[in-house]
């Protein structure tokens, strides 16, 4: 028998010898493994005993060796950083005199009453938290006072130097420095690895936007608002604000309403700003040209519902004019002619039917008509019956007036990398929409006069919609918005401002519409922020610009003529 066959036989057969001998021989293996195991325990015991015996951290390890990455704005200003702070705690079993210790601690812990401190110091435990975050200075004071039984432990703590500004989008972390909301959560993996994150936000521009919207909120006694500035070409969000705000360093103390991000998580019916999209669809689909006439005079009743205009028209208008005077009837008839399929196709390629994609968890899915009936198609054309976020709207309009290709919103500097170009609108459609938006702001009957800032060629569109309360539209509670692009002949930025539940004031002749409430905020913003955004004022009438803003509006021109006679 060859040696290989012998070996093979040994491997696959039950040994042929006396089973007792087999067992005795084979007992050597457990003997060896057992010896090895006990030796390892012994070695580990000795090595542990030789280790540094200073108290190691007793609780979940929060200060990992890697420092969490910082968050910067696009110009390099720090929005979130990590600083050393101390957790202050007591070991009640070693507290000598809880009364004395309470007195000594009371001014160091302004957030706790003396009763609370005392009850912590006398709990039946070895660890009683006093504060999970005190400054090094406070900790030093506690040490100086030499309170027996009170200890501190260094722990890295997230600090937001901008406090309120952009708090919603920067987000917050939990006690273990794990991202909870905003970029802190959305980019947690990178931050936890120590990588810095550079946002698309410019915090100075952000502050101007916030201030302008805040002013309008207080003028019109509104309950809140939101605003967003987007780079038309890249989709980068330059500013994003949600009001009321909260201090990012004290997230848990803010109330639910302040924590809520109205710009990316709140969905609202955007009203007439949707007419920009409706007009673009009409022109792009080839069903209409800008000069085609639309019936805005005869009454429009569908499925038991009457569609009315704010200002009833006396004569038919062309497609461009329908948008300039913001006719609901006209928009509805245009959409009806396009049909639901065409409308849904465009809404979908503009991203308005899908959940918002952004680098923060606070995003929302649009509320769309179900079932999508004929009347739905008509109301959606002027922004009713469909609710989207401000970020949805800004990205859709950027797509429409940028270069016609799909724009994806992003909070990260540089924007979303596009694998391929998704063209939605042709260059000619884009040019016409830009021009019509400019006319909305300049025309006598346009609704965006308050945003017409000289030199910046602002184009825009107002939106006003009624809020839905208990499933019914409430005429008194409005969402007012204004969307602008500037400079209109070659837009660099889209600005949206939204004010929630404004109340008509005497100075506004008791109007609380987008033109009165939101447009001035956008106007004020452009006036102050355009220089920061490197947009220089131009002469609109120069032959280099004028041709791009041509709109054929014979009916409206005639009206103006008649009025001046």
């Amino acid at each position, binding site marked *: 028998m060859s040696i290989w066959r012998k070996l093979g036989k*040994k491997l696959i057969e039950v040994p042929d010898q006396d089973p007792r001998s087999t067992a*005795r021989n084979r007992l050597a293996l457990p003997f060896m493994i*057992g010896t090895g195991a006990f030796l390892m*325990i012994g070695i*580990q015991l000795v090595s542990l*005993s030789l280790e540094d015996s200073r*108290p190691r951290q007793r*609780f979940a*390890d929060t200060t990992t060796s890697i420092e969490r990455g910082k968050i910067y704005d696009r110009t390099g200003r720090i929005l979130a950083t990590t600083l050393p702070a101390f957790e202050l705690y007591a070991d009640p079993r070693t507290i000598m005199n809880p009364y004395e210790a309470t007195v000594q601690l009371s001014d160091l812990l302004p957030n706790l009453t003396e009763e609370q401190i005392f009850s912590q110091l006398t709990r039946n435990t070895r660890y009683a938290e006093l504060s999970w975050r005190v400054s090094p200075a406070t900790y030093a004071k506690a040490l100086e006072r030499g309170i027996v039984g009170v200890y501190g432990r260094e722990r890295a703590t997230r600090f937001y130097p901008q406090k309120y500004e952009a708090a919603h989008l920067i987000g917050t972390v939990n006690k273990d420095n794990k991202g909870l909301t905003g970029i802190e959560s959305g980019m947690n993996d990178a931050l936890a690895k120590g990588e810095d994150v550079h946002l698309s936000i410019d915090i100075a521009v952000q502050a101007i936007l916030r201030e302008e919207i805040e002013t309008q909120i207080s003028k019109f006694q509104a309950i809140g608002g939101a605003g967003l500035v987007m780079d038309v070409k890249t989709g980068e969000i330059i500013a994003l604000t949600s009001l009321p705000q909260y201090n990012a360093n004290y997230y848990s103390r803010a109330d639910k309403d302040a924590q809520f991000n109205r710009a990316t998580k709140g969905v609202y019916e955007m009203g007439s700003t949707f007419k920009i999209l409706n007009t673009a669809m009409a022109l792009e689909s080839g069903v209409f040209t800008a000069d085609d006439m639309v019936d805005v005079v005869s009454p429009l009743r569908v499925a038991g519902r009457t569609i009315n205009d704010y200002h009833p028209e006396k004569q038919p208008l062309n497609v461009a004019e329908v948008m300039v005077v913001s006719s609901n009837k006209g928009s509805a008839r245009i959409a009806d002619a396009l049909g639901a399929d065409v409308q849904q196709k465009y809404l979908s390629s503009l991203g308005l039917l899908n959940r918002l994609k952004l680098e923060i968890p606070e995003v929302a899915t649009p509320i769309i008509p179900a079932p999508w009936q004929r009347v739905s198609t008509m109301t959606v054309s002027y922004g009713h019956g469909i609710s989207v976020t401000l970020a949805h709207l800004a990205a859709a309009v950027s797509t429409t007036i940028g270069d016609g290709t799909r724009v994806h919103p992003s909070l990260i500097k540089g924007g979303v990398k596009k694998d391929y170009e998704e063209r939605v609108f042709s260059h000619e459609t884009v040019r016409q929409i830009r021009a019509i938006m400019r006319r909305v702001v300049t025309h006598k009957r346009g609704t965006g006069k308050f945003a017409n800032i000289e030199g910046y060629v602002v184009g825009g569109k107002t939106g006003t919609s009624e809020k839905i309360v208990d499933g019914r539209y409430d005429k008194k509670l409005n969402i007012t918005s204004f969307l602008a692009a500037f400079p209109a002949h070659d837009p660099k930025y889209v600005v949206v401002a939204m004010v929630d539940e404004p109340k008509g004031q005497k100075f506004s002749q008791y109007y609380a519409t987008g033109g009165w409430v939101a447009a001035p905020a956008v106007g004020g913003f452009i006036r102050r922020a355009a220089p920061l955004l490197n947009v220089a004022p131009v002469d609109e009438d120069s032959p280099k610009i004028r041709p791009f803003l041509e709109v054929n509006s014979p009916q409206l021109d005639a009206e103006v003529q008649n009025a001046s006679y």
Partner: protein
Amino acid sequence: MISRTDRSVIGIWWWTVDRHLLGSALMLAILGIFLVMAASPPVAMTINIDPQHFVQRHLMFLAPAAVVLIATSVLSHRWIRILALAGLLGAAVLIILSIAIGPEVKGATRWIPLGPFKLQPSEFAKPFFAVVSAWLLSLWREERDFPGWIISIVCLAILAGLLVLQPDVGMTIVIVMTWALQIFLAGMPLALVLLLSLVVAPAVAITGYFALPHVYARVNKYLEGGSMQADNAMRSFSNGGFFGVGPGNGDVKYILPDAHSDFIFAVAGEEFGIISCIVLASIYAFIMFRSFKLARQSESLFLIYAISGLAMQFGLQALIHMGSSVHLIPTKGMTLPFISYGGSSLLATALTVGILLALTRRPVAGRVS
């Protein structure tokens, strides 16, 4: 004292029992009293009961444990086999009962409430299984027609299945390892041994890791570090140093959740020092290796398999407990035989050692001369 010519049960027992094993067990039981006294009061205080509660109960259980140990160790091999067979069946029924009606404690249903006590039947199934499986395998090797190995696999599958249902992964591992050792000794072909240990066992381990969420969590915590229990247990050894901080001076027992049972080795390390831990580990090693040696010297196949299996059970349980405490393996709640608090564990350990003593008794010399 007892005369060599005393032919009473006690007389024969005293002269035939392995006094090294008996003495080691006694030593462990005494050390156990001290360690439970050190480790259990803080645990009792956290749940707001009398600080001496666990100490009293531990002492109370020592008496029946001693009775069980001695009563089992006087039995003949025949009776041991009958006891084990009946016991295994009974324990299996009780395990099914515990899964069906037992209360859930920390995510597992392992106990049957008996008035003021909770009985953990799987603890008793362990030694009985070792004996029954040794019996089956020895019959197979002695009479080639008897399919003992198949029956033993069926027993193992049923028992392990029940234990996974509870779930009790630690106990499952101990039972499977017992059987693995015995079938190895019984002459499993080497190719199969290699296949099982290098392919099947890692595959089962990986499947268990992904299929059982608590196993997944435990193992991940071990790999990532930063587990509070493991950190605290390791800190207790560095705190204790070679000679310990002294009885009652330890800190860690206040923080560890089961200081009196699953982490009593860490308390020993902190209060009595590494030296005492090494002494403790040596006693377990001695019991295991002494039993292996006695198994080698046995003439009967059944005895070789049974003694080896029981010895490994005993040693493995101690190794898992100590290994978790010193962070060599993921934390696995397992009691330290004779030392940890726990009625079922103490009685079952007494039973294991009782059977071990019964099987390792020397053949009566008097009859030969």
